[in-house]
């Protein structure tokens, strides 16, 4: 039964993808309905999976041979992420009914989104490393194709290519780790790696651990790979909400959480993870303060919040990381969809061309403000509890300077979030364009997510219970997972909370007093160098551009192999055959 649910959660969106594609773009209404139907039914099966979490193999596709069997384990961690992917996916598809109305290429759009939802569920449910890698790459491909969805826009195409190349570096790290694990353990099974980690040679384990760290950093847009995520904002906004805020970018954090018990002991690994998180959180927050584009500001805040989760894993706060992942997925999807409604109405992404939209779009404004308060980490929204759990874990187990950095980051978050909300919804109108509030389908998605942002922290006990039946990663997390009452009293009693709240309020105050602040910045002569540095992503843009350029020039050179001459191609085939024969013969002798 559980096996069937797993198969349906992965399979339904895929069937839907084919169906929407096959219907054809000239029947747009049917496409909308089909997409919503399949996405919502996948969300329902994912929710049903919640009742059946177990750490046993529930679905096994017998493949055998060197691949091992393709197995799926619906444990707490996996099911939690599946539910996030499927439910937010469903809401994003519902939102798309309004957002994508009248757009060309609807079939391609919905097919890719549905394909992504299935692949994401597969990625977290798979308990075979090779299969996980396949799903991992599938999500990367969907992300690429959706970033470049408006493929007559050169910026969208460039953003897609950049995202593809940067995440492929991560994919390479993952593949190296997976193959090293297979070579030394003789199995692709995830539990074999978790249980056998201590039997491995230290060098091998370090190779796997750092390979996975590279994969996680690239997928979750952490330093030094973070620049692909702002570029990914060329995608249609529901896609940004689903893939580049709520689900796919969580895959990196998932990888770290899943394998934390195995890699914990690798010298330097936890420190490296903590540093990656810390630097990403601070750097992205600094960039968000000066961003002009609404979606880019949100993208930087995503990088920053993912940095918080990675930091939490680095200091051993695995449960805090999981809980913040859950909260963040909900409130960031809300913020992105709210931004989508604004962009849809205002026709621009430039925050300097918005302003005063709150009066005409009260519903969007109210839900967006709820999301923004959660992002800042103000009580009693879900972002508050999870962020405080992270900071508390950091104060307990991490070095004090890192904790100070993260608290500073929380203040910056409040500053840029306030700036963003003010520029978009309040203050004077800076454009004459008449706007209208979000449509029915948009309101539904925004409303559900806003209610979620207000209430999901109440689920802390059930999330903890759900995670307790995970593979080893869960046992430790379950110990750390408090019941609701415990969490409330613990967080409220912790000095870290009050310190962080003070800093957040100070950040809000700075946001309120932006004009004197910017005059001060001007007087100190800091504005020009800061903006210039921010435009270059503090030097990381250069590194990433070089990587992309190197890959592209290599591809140009490899084109010489494609002669287009039939005889040469035939010679290539024969040559490869000879090589294979020689290898086989050499292998026998």
């Amino acid at each position, binding site marked *: 039964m559980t096996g069937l649910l797993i198969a349906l959660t992965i399979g339904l969106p895929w069937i839907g993808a084919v169906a929407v594609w096959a219907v054809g773009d000239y029947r747009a209404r049917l496409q909308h309905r089909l997409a919503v139907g399949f996405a919502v039914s996948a969300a329902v099966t994912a929710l049903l999976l919640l009742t059946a979490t177990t750490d046993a193999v529930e679905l096994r596709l017998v493949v055998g041979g060197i691949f091992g069997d393709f197995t799926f384990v619906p444990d707490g961690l996996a099911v939690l992420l599946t539910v996030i992917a499927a439910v937010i996916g469903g809401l994003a598809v519902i939102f798309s009914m309004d957002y994508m109305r009248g757009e060309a290429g609807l079939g391609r759009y919905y097919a890719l989104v549905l394909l992504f939802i299935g692949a994401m569920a597969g990625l977290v449910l798979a308990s075979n490393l090779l299969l996980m890698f396949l799903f991992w790459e599938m999500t990367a491909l969907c992300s690429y194709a959706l970033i470049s969805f408006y493929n007559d826009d050169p910026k969208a195409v460039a953003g897609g290519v950049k995202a593809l190349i940067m995440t492929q570096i991560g994919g390479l790290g993952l593949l190296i780790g997976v193959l090293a694990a297979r070579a030394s353990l003789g199995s692709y099974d995830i539990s074999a790696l978790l249980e056998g980690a201590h039997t491995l040679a230290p060098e091998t384990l370090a190779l796997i651990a750092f390979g996975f760290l590279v994969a996680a950093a690239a997928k979750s847009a952490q330093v030094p790979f973070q620049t692909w995520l702002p570029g990914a904002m060329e995608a249609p906004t529901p896609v940004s909400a689903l893939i580049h805020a709520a689900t796919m970018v969580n895959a990196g954090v998932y990888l770290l959480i899943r394998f934390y018990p195995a890699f914990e002991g690798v010298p330097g690994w936890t420190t490296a993870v903590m540093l990656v998180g810390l630097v990403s959180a601070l750097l992205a927050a600094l960039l968000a303060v000066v961003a002009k584009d609404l979606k880019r500001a949100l993208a930087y805040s995503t990088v920053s919040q993912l940095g918080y989760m990675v930091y939490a894993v680095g200091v051993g706060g695995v449960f805090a990381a999981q809980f913040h992942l859950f909260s963040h997925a909900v409130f960031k999807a809300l913020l992105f969809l709210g931004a989508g409604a604004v962009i849809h109405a205002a026709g621009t992404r430039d925050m300097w061309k918005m302003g005063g939209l709150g009066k005409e779009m009260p519903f969007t404004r109210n839900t967006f403000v709820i999301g923004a308060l959660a992002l800042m980490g103000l009580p009693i929204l879900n972002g508050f509890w999870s962020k405080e759990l992270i900071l508390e874990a950091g104060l307990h187990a991490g070095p004090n300077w890192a904790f100070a950095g993260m608290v500073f980051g929380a203040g910056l978050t409040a500053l840029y979030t306030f700036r963003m909300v003010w520029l978009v919804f309040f203050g004077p109108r800076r454009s004459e364009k008449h706007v209208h509030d979000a449509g029915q389908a948009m309101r539904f998605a925004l409303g559900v997510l806003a209610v979620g942002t207000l209430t999901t922290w109440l689920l802390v006990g059930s999330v903890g219970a759900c995670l307790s039946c995970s593979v080893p990663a869960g046992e430790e997390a379950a110990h750390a997972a408090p019941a609701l009452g415990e969490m409330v009293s613990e967080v409220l009693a912790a000095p870290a909370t009050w310190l962080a709240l003070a800093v957040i309020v100070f950040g809000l105050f700075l946001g309120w007093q932006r004009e004197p602040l910017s005059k001060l910045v001007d007087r100190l002569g800091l504005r020009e160098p800061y903006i210039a540095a921010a435009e270059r992503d503090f030097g990381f843009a250069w590194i990433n551009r070089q990587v992309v350029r190197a890959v592209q020039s290599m591809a140009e050179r490899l084109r010489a192999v494609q002669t287009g001459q039939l*005889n040469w191609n035939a*010679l290539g085939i*024969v040559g490869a055959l000879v090589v294979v024969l020689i290898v086989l013969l050499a292998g026998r002798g």
Partner: protein
Amino acid sequence: MSFSLVEIGVVGVVGLLAIGLYGLLAVRNLIKVIVALQILVKGALVALVLAGHASGQMNLGQSLAMTAIVADTVVAAVALALAVQVRRRMNTLDVQALSKLKG
């Protein structure tokens, strides 16, 4: 001096494969390329039957050969149809001149 059936067969297979390969690599006319491909595949078919005979699994070898014949026929039909289209559109059958697939 006497040869066993298998030995004669192997010589035949190698000969067919060699002719086919040579054609595939050296011939420029698309139709002849397809003919060369057919010869190559026939070599493989004989090899299948021969291998079945040599390993005592006559049925397996023959049924594999039958399957290959079916697949091969389809390939030949499609290839020839493509050749006709190429001739109509490009006005040539010279594979050296057909370099539109160049990367």
